[in-house]
């Protein structure tokens, strides 16, 4: 048996820890680990930027909070390139495919609260939207 949680949010500056707390039309989904779930088994993460600034950055996920037994776990999940000499109408799309990490095996405490944060490092590439899904298991 597995359970899932998906959160998303904007990441608009480098070197800034940003909590993901929304889920589209659901503004405050529960980040409490479901009863009986003792591990994060899979992570799916995706990001795309508008490329309105020239730069390059990599993104990483910070999984923390009281629910994570062995302290905050930090995992890189993607990068973004942007060179903005071109005019906006000529700009290529930024199609963010997802990164899926299986057999994640992070120990968590059921019924305790998780924090899901993302951060970008490097040079700002503009505004970015990030979505993260966690799959819980035993």
């Amino acid at each position, binding site marked *: 048996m597995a359970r899932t949680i998906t959160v998303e949010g904007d990441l608009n500056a*480098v*070197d*800034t*820890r940003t909590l993901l707390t929304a889920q589209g039309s659901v503004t405050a989904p529960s980040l409490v680990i479901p009863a009986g779930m003792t*591990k994060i088994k899979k992570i799916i993460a*995706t*990001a*795309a*930027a508008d*490329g309105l600034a*020239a*730069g*390059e*950055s*990599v*993104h*990483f996920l910070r999984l923390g909070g009281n629910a994570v*037994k*062995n302290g905050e*776990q*930090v*995992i*890189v*999940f*993607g*990068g*973004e*390139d*942007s*060179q*903005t*000499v*071109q005019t906006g109408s*000529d*700009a*290529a*799309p*930024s*199609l*963010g*495919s*997802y*990164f899926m*990490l299986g*057999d*994640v*095996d*992070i*120990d968590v405490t059921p019924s305790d609260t998780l924090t899901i944060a993302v*951060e*970008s*490092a*490097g*040079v700002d*590439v503009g505004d970015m939207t990030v979505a993260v899904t966690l799959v819980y298991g035993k």
Partner: protein
Amino acid sequence: MAKLYRSREGQITAVDTKSQLTTLGSETAPGPLLVPQGAKLLKAVITALACDQSVAADGSFFIRLEGPGLPEGPETLAIGSSGVAVATGGHGSRSANRIEVDVPVVPANEILIFAENAGEDTGTETVGVTLEFIT
């Protein structure tokens, strides 16, 4: 048995130059990356790369893992490449990659992570690396 994840990131600004990854975004001095207590193996390496595409050139990128935390010596892993015909605009998203390795480690000892640009100088790159330890 659980897994533990430790990450660092940093920039490459010159070709054929070892560039140590020592920061973690808002954490400008996270300190040495130590093998966690109880870790038996470096099970996998997860890498992410971004290039500013500011030079019309092509290059490949790899990382070096070194230090007393690796009893069998340094390891190198290719992590990607980038090329553009003109430095007048480009945009792309890149997913991370996971490379399974099974490298022995020494708990409480340091692993140094370096990134490097080979081939032609492609501008500035940011590289992120996560080490996946298994206990």
